C-alpha cells in the first residue's frame, strides 16, 4: 500500500529526515516512534504532501505520489489526522463532517442545491459521527466539544475521506487515561482493510496496536521490527527508552 524509499528532507543544514524507507502492505498496522525531535511529524508531513522531500520517492498503492499536492494525495487514498486538533471551529460536528463528505464525493462543487438539504451528505456524516462515538454531539459547535471529543472528530474527519491509508499523528496526545482507552478501542475497531500508520508517544498504545514498529532518531531509521523485537532491542532501550532500561 505504501512504499517509501530513500526519503530525505533538510531545513537549512538540519537534516530532519535522513534516508527513510518504509513499506506497508495493505491492511498493515504500523507505528513510528522516537524521541522528541526525531522527525516523526516531518515524516508525516512528507507523506501527506505538506512538505516536499529533497530526495526519495513515495508510492501509494503502486502510484508515485512524490510530487502530488496534499489534496491530490487524499484523492489517491491517503488521509491523516493531526497531532494538534485541526478543525473547523465555526461549524457544528454535523456540518464539518458533511463538508468533508461533500469533498470526498465531489459534491463540494455543487452550488445549485442547499447544503443543509443534502440528505445523503448528512446521513453519511451522522454515521461517521456514530463510528467515533460522537452521535450525541452532532449539533454541537465544534469549539464547544471537550478536548477528547475534538480528538475523536479529528479521526472522523480523516475517515470521511474514505482513505485506504490512514496516518494518525498522536491520536491520544493530551488525553486522560479514560479518553485514551476510548481512542484505543476506536482505532482497534477500524476496518481491517484500512492500512494504518501511527505516531504515538504512549507505549502501551503502540505495543498493543502495531504489528510492526519503526524507530526514528535524528531523522534516521534506527530499527524496524515487531513489538517484541523492539522491546528487546538494546539500541532502542539505550537511545529511546532511556539509559535506565
Amino acid at each position, binding site marked *: 500500500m505504501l512504499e517509501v524509499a530513500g526519503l530525505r528532507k533538510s531545513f537549512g543544514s538540519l537534516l530532519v529526515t535522513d534516508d527513510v524507507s518504509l513499506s506497508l502492505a495493505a491492511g498493515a498496522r504500523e507505528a513510528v516512534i522516537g524521541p522528541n525531535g526525531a522527525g516523526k511529524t516531518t515524516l508525516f508531513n512528507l507523506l*501527506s504532501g*505538506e512538505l516536499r522531500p529533497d530526495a526519495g520517492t513515495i508510492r501509494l498503492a503502486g502510484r508515485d505520489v512524490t510530487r502530488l*499536492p*496534499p*489534496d*491530490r494525495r*487524499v*484523492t489517491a487514498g491517503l*488521509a*491523516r489526522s*493531526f497531532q494538534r486538533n*485541526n*478543525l*473547523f*471551529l*465555526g*461549524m*457544528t460536528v454535523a*456540518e*464539518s463532517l*458533511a*463538508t*468533508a463528505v*461533500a*469533498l*470526498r464525493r465531489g*459534491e*463540494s*462543487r*455543487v*452550488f*445549485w*442545491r*442547499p*447544503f*443543509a438539504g*443534502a440528505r445523503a*451528505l448528512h446521513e453519511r456524516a451522522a454515521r461517521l459521527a456514530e463510528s467515533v462515538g460522537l452521535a450525541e*454531539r*452532532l*449539533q*454541537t*459547535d465544534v469549539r*464547544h466539544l471537550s478536548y477528547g471529543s475534538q480528538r475523536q472528530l479529528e479521526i472522523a*474527519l*480523516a475517515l*470521511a*475521506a474514505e482513505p485506504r491509508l490512514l496516518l494518525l499523528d498522536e491520536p491520544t496526545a493530551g488525553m486522560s487515561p479514560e479518553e485514551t482507552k476510548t481512542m484505543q478501542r476506536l482505532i482497534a475497531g477500524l476496518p481491517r482493510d484500512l492500512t494504518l500508520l501511527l505516531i504515538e508517544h504512549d507505549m502501551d498504545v503502540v505495543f498493543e496496536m502495531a504489528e510492526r514498529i519503526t524507530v526514528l532518531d535524528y531523522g534516521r531509521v534506527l530499527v524496524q521490527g515487531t513489538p517484541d523485537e523492539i522491546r528487546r532491542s538494546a539500541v532502542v532501550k539505550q537511545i529511546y527508552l532511556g539509559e535506565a532500561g
Partner: protein
Amino acid sequence: MPARDPLSLPVLALLFGGVLAAALFVDAYRLTIVIEIAILVIFVLSLDFLVGYAGLVSFGHAGFMGVGAYALAYLAHFQGWPSGVAILAGVACGALSGIAIGALVTRVSGVFFIMVTLAVSMMFWAWASKARKFGADDGLGGLKRMDLKPLGLDLNDDRTFAVVCVVLAVLAYLLFRWLVRSPFGQTLKAIKQNENRARALGCPVQRYKVAAFAIAGAVAAFAGALHLQNTKFVHPEVAHWIRSGEGLIVVIVGGAGTLTGPVIGGFLFVLFHRIVESFTTHWQIWMGLLFVAIVLAAPDGIFGRLLSLVRRKAPKGPGDA
C-alpha cells in the same frame, strides 16, 4: 442555519422595502441617494462574498467595477453594441479578470495578498487615467442608459431606473444567499476557517478561491456597469483604491460573513455620507471616527453584534450544551 438567524428577514424586509418605497415616492435629489445605495449594496455583497465567506481580504475590489464600467463604455459607445449586451459582456470581462487575477493573487497570503490586490487594481486605475480614448483623467461623458422600452421601462426616467436598481440589489442578495448556502459555499467557509485542514480533506483550495474571485468579479463588474448607467459617465475614479477601501469599511462595519450586514452597511454609509456632507466638506474625518467607534463597540460589525445579542437572549438549542 436559518433557525439561528431570526433577524435577517425583518431587517432586510425593512431596508429593501424602505429603499423601494423611497424609489417610488421621494423627490429627484433623494432618488440619487436610493440609486447610490442600491449600487453600493451590489458591490459590497460581492466583496463580502470574497472577504466574509472565502476569507480573501481584497483591497482592490473596485478594480472589477472599473472593468465592468470601461468594458461597457468601450463596447456601447465605441463599438455601438446595444447597452444590454455590452453590460453582459462587461460582466463576462469581470469574471474572466477575476479568474486571471484570482489565479495570480491566491498564490500569496496575508499582507502580501492585500498589497497585490491593491497593486493590480491600481494598475487598472493608472491605465484608465491615461487612456485618451476614454478622456483620461477627465473621464468620458455622453454615454447612454440601457433601452428597455420593449419591456415598457424607460430607464432615462430616474424613478424607473431607481426601482430597477433596487430590484437588482435584491436579486444580488438572493444570488449570494443561494451560493453561500450551497455545498460550494460551505466549502468556501471551510477554507476560510481552516485552509490547511480543507486541503487535508482533499480540497483543491486554490481552485475554489479562483472561483470565488470569478463570481465576485462578475458581480462587481455588474455594479460598475450599473454605476456608469447611473451617471452616464465613465471616470477612472470608479476603480480607485478609495472605493475598494470604502467597500471594505462597509463590509466590516455591517458585519463580514453575513449577507445582511453589508446591506445594512451600504445603506448607512450612503446616508451618513450625504448627511454629514451637507454640514462639512471633511465628511471623511467623521466617517473615520464612526468607523473606529463601531469597530471597537462591535468587532463583528453591526449585524454580527445584533445577532449575538439576540442569540444570548434566546434559549439554547438542545445540542448546544
